[in-house]
Structure formats: C-alpha cells, structure tokens
C-alpha cells in the first residue's frame, strides 16, 4: 500500500488506513513527545491524544504543509510543548529548556531504561553538541530557520549547511 493512497483514504475517514498510518508512525510520534516531556507514561497518553487530534484534523492536511510525517510531527510537538508549558507555567517557547535531546542523550538512565538508549547513542555517535542542539531545535521543538539562527546566534545560511552535515552524520551512522 503506497503512502499517498493511505493518506487519501485517511482523509476520507477510513479507519483501516488510519491504523496503517498509526502503525507506521506511532513510535516516532511518541518518541518526539518523550524527548520533550521526558516522562514515558505521560508521553504514551499524550501520544494517543495526538493521534485522535490528527484524526479530527484529517481534512486540514494538504501538501503545502509538507510531508505527512512533518505535518503530524508538528501536531505532536505542539501538543507536547503545550503540555510542558501548562506544567511549568512558562509562556515563552524560547524559555523552554533547549537541551531536551542532549539531555535524553546524556541522561538516558533517567527514563528507567524505557527507551532504546543503545540505538540512540549509536545514531548520535560522533555528533558534536551543537549538531545535537540544532537537531533538537528544528525537529523536536519546531523552530524555523530564522528562530534557530537567532537562538544559536548564527547566520541563517549557516543553519542550512550545518543541519545538512549533521543529518548526513546520522545517515552515515545508520549504514
């Protein structure tokens, strides 16, 4: 079953297609939420809420929003960040701890061995901290290129080339 077809059926409220999409992406979406919340139980609950939300917003997806995964990734991290804000009573996106992926990477024992620490460490092997930080901002916190440049006090052009080389290193580690 190809992805485009599944997405079309999902948009017509086909629950079978939606279950297939859930099977494809649920672990990833929960993984993103878990990086932000660092709370495996709460992450699982929120992850399911996020998929119900995705279902209810099915007619809002179109290709101008990018890849389907990118669209649900955006819904997931917004939900997780909202959750974190309501907990910490902080109202600024920029005030969120910027080290979530770095933290989960370095302190994975905190998660009681619930995550695939070995897999994570092998993927991030050899990556510099500024790479991990940039991946965290762009993929897990939903920063735009401009916001990331401002946060890291780096020229915009540098963000682009740096993320290219960071992701390339992960891809090398995968091989």
């Amino acid at each position: 079953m190809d992805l485009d077809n599944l997405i079309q059926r999902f948009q017509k409220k086909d629950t079978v297609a939606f279950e297939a999409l859930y099977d494809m992406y649920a672990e990833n979406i929960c993984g993103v939420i878990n990086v932000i919340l660092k709370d495996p139980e709460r992450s699982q609950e929120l992850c399911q809420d996020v998929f119900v939300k995705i279902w209810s917003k099915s007619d809002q997806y179109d290709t101008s929003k990018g890849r389907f995964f990118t669209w649900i990734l955006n819904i997931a991290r917004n939900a997780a960040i909202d959750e974190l804000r309501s907990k910490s009573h902080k109202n600024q996106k920029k005030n969120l701890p910027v080290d979530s992926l770095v933290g989960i990477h370095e302190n994975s024992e905190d998660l009681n061995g619930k995550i695939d620490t070995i897999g994570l460490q092998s993927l991030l092997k050899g990556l510099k901290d500024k790479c991990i930080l940039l991946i965290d901002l762009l993929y897990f916190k939903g920063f735009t290129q401009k916001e990331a440049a401002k946060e890291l006090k780096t020229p915009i052009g540098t963000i682009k080339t740096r993320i290219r080389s960071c992701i390339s290193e992960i891809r090398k580690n995968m091989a």
Partner: protein
Amino acid sequence: MDVKEYIASGVLELYVAGALSPEENLEVQHYALQHPEVKSEIEAIEKSILELTRTTSPKLSKDSFKTVRAQLDDVIQFKPEASERKTPWGNYVGWAASIVLAIGLIGVYLQNNQLKTEIEITNQEKENLEQILSTTQEKVIDKEALLQQLRAKNITVVALGGQAVSPDSYAKAYWNREENKVIIDAQGLPEPPPGYAYQVWSLKLTPLTPTSIGLLEDFATDDSKLFALSNPNESEAFGITLEPEGGSETPTLEQLYTLGAVGP
C-alpha cells in the same frame, strides 16, 4: 537549477523538519516532482529522522491503537449534521409537499393531454363536416346546372322503352341539338354485370345505321345515374346495349336493353 547543489544546500533537511514557509514547501515539492533525486533525498532524510525518533519512544504496547480507535467514533459524531437532525418534521413535510406537488403536476399534465386530444378530435370532426358541406355544395351546383340543362327550351326528350332482353328497363334521353349534347337518365336500367358496360347509340333508321356516342362509365357508383354525352349526329332514335367493358364497334342487338325514336 543544479540538483546536486540544491540537495547540498540543506533546504531538504529544513523541509522535513517543517521549518520552511508554505511557499517554500511548494517549491520543494515542485522540484521533487521534477527530479527523482530530490524526492529520494527527502525520503532518506525523513528515514533518518524516523530512525532517530524511534529510539526515544517509550515503546508502545501492541494493541495501543485500540485506545485511539475507541475515541475515533466520538470524533466523527462531531461532524456538523446536527442541524439537519433537529428538524425531522421539516424534512417529512418537505417530502410530503413535494410528493403532493408532483401528483398535482402529473394530474394537470394528464388533464392537459386529454384536453389536447379532445381539441384534436373536434378539429378533425370540423374538417370532415367542412369537407361534406363543400362536396354537398358542389353537388347542388352540379344538379342545378343539370336541371337548367334539362329545362332548356330547345331540349328534345326521348323516352327509351324496355326491349326483349329486359322488358322492365327504361331510360330517357335529353337531347340539346344546338349544343350537340345528350343527357341519358339511366335510372331505369339494372346494374351491369362485372366486365360489362352500357353503350349508347345514335341511330339512323333508313337504312339502320348505329353510331356509338359513348359508354355509361362508372354506372354502379354514380348515384344520380345521369350521364352527359356528346352527340353531333342527326339522330332518329337512341338505343342502349350491354357491351363488354370498353365498348364495341357495332351494337350487340341481342343485348339491346332500351330503345326509343326521336319524335317529329
């Protein structure tokens, strides 16, 4: 566009992250459609992010979708159909009204058709009557003309009496010498058998010389039984014989039905 340069720029990594504007997204998609290398690069980048995020998942139970599935039906019910359900009677009344209207329209249509048919029949009858009137008028005119001819001053009337073959037969000849015309009133002759017709002869008596002046055509169908024939002869008598259809050169005297001499 240099595809390799475009891929190396890092824009595709930003695209997968969702860090581009909608316009930039559409531009990337445009290039992805045009260049398969761009599309496969996007998929490779996405795959690396999927791999990375999978490792941080708190590992879902196998039937975790069930919890999600149980909530989907509630979501579906929030579709805005409630306003229609609020007024079911409005619906029924609407349908009922439509049906009544439809039946009414069908009734009017049928009635209209019926009236059209009746008008057609009436028109047809009117035409028929006009035709009959016109024919009758023509007949009256013909008859009046005929009567005028019979009443003319210089007409010679010859009574033709029945002969041996048919003693009861009779006929009359109205001869207008000036116009060389003779009208035969054949009312007293029986209908000729099929294949035969009456032929009228002008006769000179000394010596007996018959000259054909014509056939009584369409005897059976001519209701008036009056036949106008041309007669330029100095006739002394008129005779009518039964001859084979089309007539004969000389009269068949055995079939002489009526005969009468012109008076002095």
